[in-house]
């Protein structure tokens, strides 16, 4: 299984996937530094950390999931290498599990990079801007908790997007579902039933009611694991004609 995992990770070399993975942290860093340096800094570090996490949960996380899962799948769809990969004497579930783990690993790295970018953007902004101050201190544990739980709550969206991207040769299916889901999430943020909408689960981690966040983490996490497992099973067993 380790060899299969390394093989899947090797496929990312010099690919567009890595470039797209670098985009969210760069965007968060640039935006954060500009906002702080221009004198519009949040009043304290806590607000800055939560604001960065909110941008991530609302918009950048679902967009990153769409882009990364689609591009990882296109590494096989594009040159039509499925026929080769799936005709090897390797258990197919291992191939798909490795692909899922690589996708999740990359999303985890991007999450961590965005958290880091949010923090460093404020540090740079404070240096660049004159007479700019933020009260308190940076709370690394808060950032770790927020981004970590958002990752868990986002597992269901990741599983849905990953399954669509692997199944369909065209970009259209995963991208349209992903963009649709993101926009519906924005519109339904405060809706009561929005709690059960997968694209809103990472956002609900920030909810002021603790129970709403806990439920989002539980549903997103458990649902994601179940959907990933079912998708791996299904993709392994279907014909690839």
């Amino acid at each position, binding site marked *: 299984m380790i*060899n*299969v995992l*390394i*093989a899947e990770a*090797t*496929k990312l*070399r*010099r*690919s567009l996937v890595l470039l797209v993975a670098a985009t969210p942290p760069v965007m968060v860093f640039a935006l954060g530094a500009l906002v702080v340096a221009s004198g519009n800094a949040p009043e304290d570090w806590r607000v800055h950390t939560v604001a960065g996490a909110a941008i991530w949960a609302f918009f950048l996380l679902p967009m990153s999931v769409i882009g990364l899962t689609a591009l990882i799948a296109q*590494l096989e769809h*594009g*040159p*039509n*290498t*499925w*026929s*080769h*990969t*799936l*005709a*090897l*004497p*390797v*258990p197919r579930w291992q*191939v798909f599990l490795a692909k899922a783990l690589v996708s999740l690993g990359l999303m985890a790295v991007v999450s961590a990079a965005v958290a880091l970018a949010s923090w460093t953007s404020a540090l740079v902004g404070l240096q660049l801007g004159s007479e700019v101050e933020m009260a308190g201190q940076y709370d690394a544990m808060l950032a770790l908790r927020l981004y970590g739980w958002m990752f868990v709550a986002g597992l269901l969206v990741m599983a849905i997007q990953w399954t669509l991207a692997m199944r369909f040769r065209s970009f259209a299916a995963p991208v349209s579902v992903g963009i649709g889901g993101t926009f519906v999430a924005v519109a339904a943020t405060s809706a009561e039933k929005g709690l059960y909408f997968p694209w809103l689960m990472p956002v609900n981690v920030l909810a002021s009611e603790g129970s709403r966040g806990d439920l989002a983490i539980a549903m997103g996490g458990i649902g994601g694991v179940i959907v990933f497992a079912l998708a791996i099973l299904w993709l392994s067993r279907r*014909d*690839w*004609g």
Partner: protein
Amino acid sequence: MTLPRSPPMRPSADMTETVLSFHQVTQRYGRLTALDGIDLAIPAGAIYGFLGPNGAGKTTAIRCAMGLLRPQSGRIRIGGHDLARSRRQALASVGAVIETPALFPNLTGRENLDVSRRLLGIAPALIDRALELVDMREAADRRVGQYSLGMKQRMGLARALLAEPKLLILDEPTNGLDPAGIRDMRALIRALPERTGATIFMSSHLLSEIEQLASHVGLLQKGRVLFDGTLEDLSRQQTPRLILTAGPPEQVAPVLHAAGFADPIREGDRFILTDPVAITPERAAALNAALHDAGCQVSELRLERADLETTFMTLTGHGEEAA
């Protein structure tokens, strides 16, 4: 149209071990029957040419043999293993280049082979051996995206040879190559059984290619096997014909009629004689004597066996495009 179905012919006696076999394999896509109970036997050591018109079911058969499609009925055995029951053991002895050489363009040739090597769980040293076999060592560290189609085909072949397979499946291996690339690829394929010990099962839309490379041939049409056997057996299935150039035509025609060639094809003073019963050298000699006695001037009289294209057209029943 219902086509005559020839009984599948068995491989020659010196190739008794069967590396790949299809037993009554049927594959349907909805109402379309792509493979209709096909039987094929690919003997060890052969270069087996797999021919058929577009849509005959060749690629479907190859995809079934690679485990990418599961037939609705029938059995496929590879190296003695039932593909449906022991997929991994069966595919362990197979290398394949299916359709276009599908490689990762962002990786170098060597990295592409390394990905497959890791998935196969084999030693890194086998990468250099495979590159050597296809003469791609020098280009191995360049990105595949910079390769020509011929180089991609070679690298695809190297990847297929990586695990030292007993059976090499090649789907249209010269498709899209320029004449020089086709020549090089054919030379490579021709040399492979001796250099690697692999049996080769290749589909092609070029009848002449199969005629040049293959020792055995399978003809498929509308999902049915029309022929499965050696090229010699196939050639023997085709009735030979006499090519006669003689004149004057008015004198030649009655002689031919009297000799039993009732319906010759005439092109000027050239006659193509076929006979459903038999055309033998003795009969040709007798015809020559009769023409001479009748005062005809014979400038050409030769016995001709049909080439693969003619045989193929005859077996498939019409002049449909062969591909």
